[in-house]
């Protein structure tokens, strides 16, 4: 659906103005793909490259089977019809009503009046605002404004929806309801969603796949589950998590428990099968996108290490000897 290969972009010519470096991504149809990073790392720029709002210097970008850099201005306008976009500050026209905002894209494309009306009403009821047709944006809450923006973005029946920090100015409750709405739209309409954010919770709630971007580069990409279980340096950096300290005379193992094993009583079984006086150093079970998975850190006596590793690896639960070294964890 969206294929990015070795994309580079800079503002001006100087090397330090390079905002995107060697970006490669592959977003499949129906994915909800999260791109996370701190502000100013080029996430939004990348998003704007995808629908051609910004150009790029080098690399290949194929969206909906079309090579974006080959499109003429006119083709670009038609190309953008298939890609909806929503923003952090909603980007609604304050002097137009909810209904007028939603019909605007269709008016620009010269849809017939009856078609405009039926699509607008249908979408506004999809986002739960059928009773706010004639309200102005200033009379709505942030969450409702974003719902209007979502309805507007869907009017031209796009195949892709780009979300630029779409929940970053909403409180947690509203964020949750907007994300639920996006997920239901993804399921109902088979819409591919690319979500740029700096909030890890958003990634956990809605995304299937994720990429971490820092200093203009993709540091990690993969399914949300695999990225969280791998705990790459970029992830720890982003969530500000400190590495585990190893107690004196003990060895630490990291159990990476996937969704399919999480309901098993594996610690209980280990205690019964091998006689190891383990303690739990840290256990974080993530609930992300209806899956549960997480890393559990156990401290075991050094001479029992092998027994523990063998036990878990026989049960197909990834278990590794955790050996923290600062150099390896550093992001550079």
């Amino acid at each position, binding site marked *: 659906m969206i294929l990015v290969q070795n994309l580079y972009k800079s503002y001006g010519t100087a090397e330090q103005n390079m905002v995107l470096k060697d970006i490669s991504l592959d977003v499949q149809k129906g994915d909800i793909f999260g791109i996370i990073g701190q502000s100013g790392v080029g996430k939004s720029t990348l998003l704007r490259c995808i629908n051609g709002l910004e150009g790029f210097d080098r690399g290949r970008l194929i969206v909906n089977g079309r090579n974006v850099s080959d499109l003429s201005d006119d083709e670009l306008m038609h190309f953008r019809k298939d890609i*909806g976009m929503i923003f952090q500050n909603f980007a609604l*026209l*304050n*002097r137009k009503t909810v209904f007028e905002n939603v019909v*605007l*894209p269709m008016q620009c494309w010269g849809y017939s009046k009856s078609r405009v009306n039926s699509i607008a009403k249908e979408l506004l009821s999809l986002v739960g605002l059928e009773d706010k047709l004639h309200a102005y944006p200033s009379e709505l809450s942030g969450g409702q404004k974003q719902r209007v923006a979502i309805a*507007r973005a869907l009017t*031209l029946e796009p195949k892709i929806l780009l979300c630029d920090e779409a929940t970053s100015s909403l409180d947690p409750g509203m964020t949750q309801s907007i994300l639920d709405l996006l997920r239901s739209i993804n399921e109902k309409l088979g819409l591919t969603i690319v979500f740029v954010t700096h909030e890890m919770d958003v990634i956990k709630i809605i995304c299937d796949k994720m990429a971490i971007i820092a200093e203009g580069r993709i540091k990690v990409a993969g399914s949300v589950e695999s990225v969280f279980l791998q705990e790459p340096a970029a992830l720890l950096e982003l969530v500000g998590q400190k590495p585990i300290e190893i107690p004196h005379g003990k060895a630490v193992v990291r159990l990476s428990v996937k969704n399919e094993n999480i309901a098993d009583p594996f610690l209980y079984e280990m205690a019964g099968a091998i006689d190891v006086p383990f303690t739990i150093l840290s256990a974080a079970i993530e609930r992300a996108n209806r899956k549960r998975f997480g890393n559990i850190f156990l401290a075991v006596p050094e001479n029992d290490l092998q027994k523990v590793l063998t036990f878990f690896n026989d049960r197909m639960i990834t278990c590794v000897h955790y050996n923290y070294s600062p150099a390896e964890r550093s992001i550079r």
Partner: protein
Amino acid sequence: MIHLDFATTRLFEYMPKIILPAVGATMRMLFFSMILGVIIGTLVAIVLVLTSPHGLKPNPKVYKVLGFVVNMIRAFPVIILIVAISPLTRAIVGTSIGEKAAIVPLTLSAFPVIARYIEASILEVDPNLILAARSFGASDRQIIFRVLFPEAMPSIVSGLTTTTILFLGATTLAGAVGAGGLGAVALTYGYQRFDDVMMYAIVLILFVMVLVIQGGGEFIYRKQKKKGGVFK
């Protein structure tokens, strides 16, 4: 010193014959120069907005040349402009004196002001709106007329109110060089004949006109703003 001598003033005698027709002349000069100024100013503003470095179709050459011309015309005092372009005025309306002739220099000095007001109002519109409109495939024309102008309207209205009042003053100035209207009456029948009552009566009339324009402008502004539901 102000010396109001109600015994000798010819204010009441001149009221129907001279002052009332002058009010009409001033209003006509103002009305037509503002209408023409808005039309030309809007076109210029559109080109400025389109070609500005952050505009929809950046074109530094056109933007700089047009910006230069606009600034240069703004540098001319209205009274100098009236004299300086009299050949042009004669070519357009056939004469370089009188009410009709004054409309040409007034329009010429009004449109750059109006263009800059409109440009500034449009630049204040949230740039994300342009991104959003582009993201659903709107053309530049649609962005300008369906997004930028509607959103900037309250600000444009208040800018036009200020400009209109500014040019009410300019029409009286034109009166001094033969255009007629309230300025000429205040000058010739008031000031030059030492009839202070006459002069200040005309100032009072102008003051009422300012109030009416300001009030009308605020009324429209309020109505426009209310459309966004934010006016309290």
